[in-house]
């Protein structure tokens, strides 16, 4: 069993730790990475200790360092604080100061660390089928650039994703100044064109709406998913859950959702209506009408119009605290109508100037590039950090377009689909390797600082832009500092240091703008769609596909289906029944000429006549992890309505496919509901806990066993189920913190997985709910007395330990665990039998040196992050005091956007955990078994509108 890469692998064998050539700083940092491990490694062969030649400032071997930086998602920044050990970044944490993080992370942020060490990353420039050098690229580029410069940049085009980096924007500006005729196109697959259009339509000017959920009491989401996956997720989820904390029914936020398929918002909503996307506008109209809009009566089915009427009543009753949101799938006029409605309701929302200042729509921009190429207007195309060949809408036919460009350069982290079609490819640095800056969705800027020297011979965007401007040896640090020269004021260096430390550039958040009264758009109701409608959304685990080669994300189970390593078409139960299809049937989708074959999942609670699926799969050049997983829906995507395409036909192929999922049974009935009890605010308000048949944590069943003796510490965890939105941030955080290995699709198919923390996805009365399942650390743990070698054992702080190096692998503990939270290394998933490229030396750099890497044949499980507990205890002991409240934060707890997870010390009478365990909602899962779990839950609470019949919840 090895603590991490260096110890077990290379250093012992005396090879350099990483197979690329090293320069002092990064190399020695990585070398010394070995020290901590080497000091504690085993085995006969002689081991070496490799100290620094000169110790970098602030570095103490064995002690981690924290650096604030920011990670992009769809071009917007999320502030993070990255932990680095001996120069190896190993863990991403949230940055409390950052508005898009608030101290929490999302799964993409957590997983970014693995991408950094991805062996499939592009390592050197590449052209005409062989490895090249930067200088040769420059040589090839210079004459062309000169030619373009003389022609004022005519024929030169730049293609990027969404850009919010002030520095980069400035650079591009400078470039366009130098070459006025140069074109800058930009395309982000996860766009917001409709939303922008809506604002334009309503206010006559571009604006971004920022809801103030904390002030809202009633929110109607029309096909909108504010807590869904994206750059705003953490912030919005936090605010919505805050507003929903169980208080008096009218004190806490009530959430309505109307949506075609299941979204996280829909799952959380108190009332949800499944409706075809086209007809959602009718609900908006219905509501607008009750607010006095002179619009024509929309035809709605009885249930829907009832729903609309009740919601409308509730909304207008809460004028000033009521809000209606329309999602990106809804066309501009519906968006505009919602703005009008909000204006009538005095909805709590602010407006800012769009952070992404480019006005033209993404698909529009891409289409114009394509047409420009077709007319031969573009001789040189430079693609930076984008992958249009893969993620451009199919009907643009971008693939052949690029082929026509005489000289196309792709600069990106991977030699992806686009790289393959371009004349040149050059490696871009990972975001953790270079200097830059970025704005969050609310405009707040952060400086991105490097955690490690570039692992490969790559350059960052600023260097590229500089190169285009003609300056070859520019340092991006200087470029970035330049951008902010004016900001600092006098003591600029102090300001800069502080800014780097905080991870946030002070007062850069976009200010509110005042807007005219929104116009009431003439919205015509829609008739029900004849054919099937295909609706898309960013994938819960891969988002837009750019992270497809990240094994943590690939193996992260999606909400509602628990699918891993692939995507599927989701079909309503009724439709599936009509078409005679079941889970796993492969169908053919047809829209115009475009066809696609894929397997389906039957989804109860989805609107009929709707086929939903997610982006991000079917990559062909993602790497050894991501290539060939799932199907590529971009091919069926339409440029003008990117998120939905009407008139899709579906037909059976007769083939079947084994869709991989980590959970197979979802429906809970009768007594089984004890597994995920659901309460309503109403009975909760009057409720004394007797009413809800919950196993109260401290109502311990009688026992013959002696009462345990605890002194200083007794750890316990409380998880608020109604705060869990099912976003998986905790799952990936746990994986990153605890060196949890990936098993790969074959093993998943064998029914094996390794996640220490899973999310149970149960459906009660047709409503899904999420229960995070870490180890329960039972007081009377069933797993302990059955272990013949005492590898599963209780410690004096109440933790249920798993001593890997003592475990012989009888698996008696797991078979006797009623919660099934233990995980067994059937193969050496992290120890010689890794999946795909995960065994590469470089990948081992991601391991957390404070946690053993488990070898084949041993059991493992959640430890409450015992390494963090131990660390805190040792620090406290050095200072001769006890660990303080909040000093120990588990990885899942830290990651959770809604702070649903809490760890505390029961021996501390003032600890918050006590109130969470004595709360009326508190229950012990399967407590009736007498296991006395230390992990307890707070029951799920909904806030239904009493005007709704009990029937529809």
């Amino acid at each position, binding site marked *: 069993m090895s603590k991490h890469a260096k110890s077990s692998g290379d250093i012992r064998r005396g090879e350099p730790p990483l197979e690329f050539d090293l320069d002092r700083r990064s190399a020695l940092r990585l070398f010394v990475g070995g020290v901590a491990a080497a000091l504690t490694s085993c085995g006969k062969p002689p081991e070496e200790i490799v100290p620094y030649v000169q110790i970098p400032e602030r570095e103490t071997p064995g002690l981690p360092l924290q650096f604030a930086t920011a990670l992009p998602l769809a071009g917007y920044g999320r502030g993070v604080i990255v932990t680095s050990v001996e120069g190896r970044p190993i863990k991403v944490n949230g940055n409390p100061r950052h508005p898009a993080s608030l101290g929490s992370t999302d799964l993409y942020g957590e997983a970014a660390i693995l991408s950094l060490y991805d062996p499939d990353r592009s390592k050197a420039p590449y052209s005409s089928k062989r490895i090249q050098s930067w200088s040769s690229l420059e040589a090839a580029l210079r004459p062309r650039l000169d030619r373009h410069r003389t022609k004022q940049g005519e024929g030169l085009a730049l293609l990027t994703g969404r850009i919010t980096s002030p520095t980069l924007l400035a650079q591009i500006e400078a470039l366009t100044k130098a070459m006025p005729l140069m074109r800058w196109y930009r395309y982000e697959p996860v766009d917001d064109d409709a939303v922008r259009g809506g604002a334009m339509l309503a206010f006559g000017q571009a604006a971004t709406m920022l809801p103030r959920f904390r002030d809202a009491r009633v929110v109607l989401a029309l096909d909108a998913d504010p807590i869904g996956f994206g750059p705003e997720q953490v912030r919005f989820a936090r605010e919505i859950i805050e507003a929903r904390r169980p208080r008096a029914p009218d004190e806490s936020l009530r959430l309505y959702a109307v949506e075609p398929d299941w979204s996280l918002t829909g799952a959380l909503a108190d009332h949800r209506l499944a409706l075809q996307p086209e007809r959602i506008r009718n609900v908006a109209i219905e509501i607008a009408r009750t607010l006095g809009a002179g619009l024509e009566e929309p035809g709605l089915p009885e249930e829907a119009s009832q729903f609309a009427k009740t919601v409308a009543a509730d909304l207008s009753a809460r004028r000033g605290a009521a809000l209606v949101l329309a999602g990106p799938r809804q066309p501009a006029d519906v968006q505009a109508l919602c703005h009008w409605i909000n204006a009538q309701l005095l909805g709590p929302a602010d407006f800012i100037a769009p952070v992404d200042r480019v006005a033209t729509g993404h698909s529009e921009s891409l289409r114009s590039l394509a047409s420009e190429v077709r007319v031969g207007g573009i001789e040189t195309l430079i693609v930076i950090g984008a992958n249009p060949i893969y993620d451009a809408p199919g009907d643009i036919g971008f693939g052949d377009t690029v082929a026509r460009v005489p000289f196309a350069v792709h600069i990106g982290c991977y030699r992806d689909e686009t790289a393959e079609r371009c004349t040149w490819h050059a490696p871009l640095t990972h975001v953790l390797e270079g200097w830059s800056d970025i704005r969050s969705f609310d405009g707040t800027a952060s400086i991105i600082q490097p955690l490690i020297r570039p692992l490969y011979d790559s350059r960052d965007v600023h260097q590229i832009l500089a190169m285009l401007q003609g300056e070859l040896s520019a340092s991006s640090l200087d470029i970035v500092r330049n951008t902010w020269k004016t900001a600092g004021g006098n003591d600029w260096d102090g300001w800069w240091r502080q800014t780097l430390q905080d991870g946030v550039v002070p007062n850069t958040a976009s200010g509110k703008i005042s807007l005219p009264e929104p116009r009431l758009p003439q919205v015509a109701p829609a008739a029900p769609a004849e054919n099937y409608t295909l609706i898309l959304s960013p994938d819960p685990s891969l988002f837009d596909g750019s992270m497809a080669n990240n094994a943590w994300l690939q193996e992260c189970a999606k909400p509602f289906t628990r699918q891993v390593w692939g995507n599927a078409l989701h079909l309503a139960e009724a439709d599936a029944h009509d078409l005679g299809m079941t889970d796993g049937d492969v169908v053919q989708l047809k829209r115009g000429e475009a066809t696609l074959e894929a397997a389906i999942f039957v989804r109860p609670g989805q609107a009929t006549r709707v086929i939903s699926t997610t982006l991000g799969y079917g990559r062909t050049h993602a790497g050894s992890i991501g290539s060939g997983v799932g199907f590529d829906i971009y091919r069926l995507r339409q440029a003008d309505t990117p998120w939905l395409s009407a008139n899709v036909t579906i037909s059976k192929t007769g083939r079947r496919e084994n869709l991989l999922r980590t959970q197979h049974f979802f429906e809970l009935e009768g007594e089984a509901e004890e597994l995920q009890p659901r309460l309503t605010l109403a009975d909760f308000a009057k409720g004394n806990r007797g009413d809800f048949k919950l196993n109260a944590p401290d109502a311990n069943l009688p026992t013959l066993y002696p009462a345990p003796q605890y002194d200083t510490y007794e750890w316990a965890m409380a998880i608020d189920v109604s705060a869990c939105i099912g976003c998986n941030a905790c799952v990936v955080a746990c994986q990153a913190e605890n060196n949890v290995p990936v098993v790969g699709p074959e093993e998943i198919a064998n029914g094996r997985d390794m996640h220490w923390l899973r999310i149970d996805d149960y459906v009660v009365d047709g409503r899904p709910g999420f229960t995070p399942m870490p180890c329960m650390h039972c007081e*009377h743990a069933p797993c302990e007395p059955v272990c013949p070698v005492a590898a599963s054992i*209780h410690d004096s702080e109440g933790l249920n330990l798993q001593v890997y190096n003592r475990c012989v692998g009888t698996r008696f503990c797991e078979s006797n665990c009623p919660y099934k939270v233990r995980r067994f290394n059937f193969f050496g998933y992290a120890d010689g039998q890794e999946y795909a490229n995960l065994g590469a030396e470089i990948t081992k750099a991601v391991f957390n040196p404070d946690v053993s890497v488990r070898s084949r044949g041993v059991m493992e499980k959640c430890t409450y992050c015992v390494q963090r507990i131990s660390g805190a205890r040792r620090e406290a002991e050095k200072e001769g005091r006890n660990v303080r409240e909040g000093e120990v934060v588990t990885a899942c707890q830290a990651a959770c956007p809604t702070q649903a997870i809490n760890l505390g010390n029961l021996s501390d009478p003032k600890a918050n955990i006590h109130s969470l365990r004595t709360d009326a909602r508190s229950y012990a899962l399967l407590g009736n078994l007498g296991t006395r779990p230390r992990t307890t839950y707070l029951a799920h609470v909904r806030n239904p509108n009493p005007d709704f019949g009990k029937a529809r919840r």
Partner: protein
Amino acid sequence: MTHLLLVEFADESRFAEAARCARSMRYRLIDAYTPYPVEQVFELFEHRDSRIRPAMFAGGVAMAAVAYGLEYYSAVVDYPYDSGGRPLDAWPAFMLVPFATGILLAAVCGFVMFLFETGLPKLSDPVFAVDGFERVSQDRFVLALEPPGEQDRQRAAEFLKSVGATAVREVER
């Protein structure tokens, strides 16, 4: 050096009968060799009760005590720890090992005592040299008497004939 008179019989009943007569006629019975146990003949020899069962009992109890002692020492004294909140001295769970090992050692002690009482292993014994002795382990019954003095050899011969001995041999031991 002593001599043995080995008197061979073809079947159990005659053999048993002969033994009884010989006894009543004050011939000294030294031993009997049979292909299967013939208890009533064994009764005719002076013998003390077997010590096999006491040995087994002692061995078994001792082993059980040691086993439980080991469990107690390791779980309560040497390295006490909390396993599922169970008491350190979880005697109900500690019962089986003493039981099983106790029985095992009882068996071993029994076997050892058996060897002591039978004097086995004794691979070479004078009687093996006697012709026909090999059939003792198959279908012959042999009575071992103390050879009579010179004066009454005649009588002895007649007597043995009368009880139906099929052969009489003398062996030195």
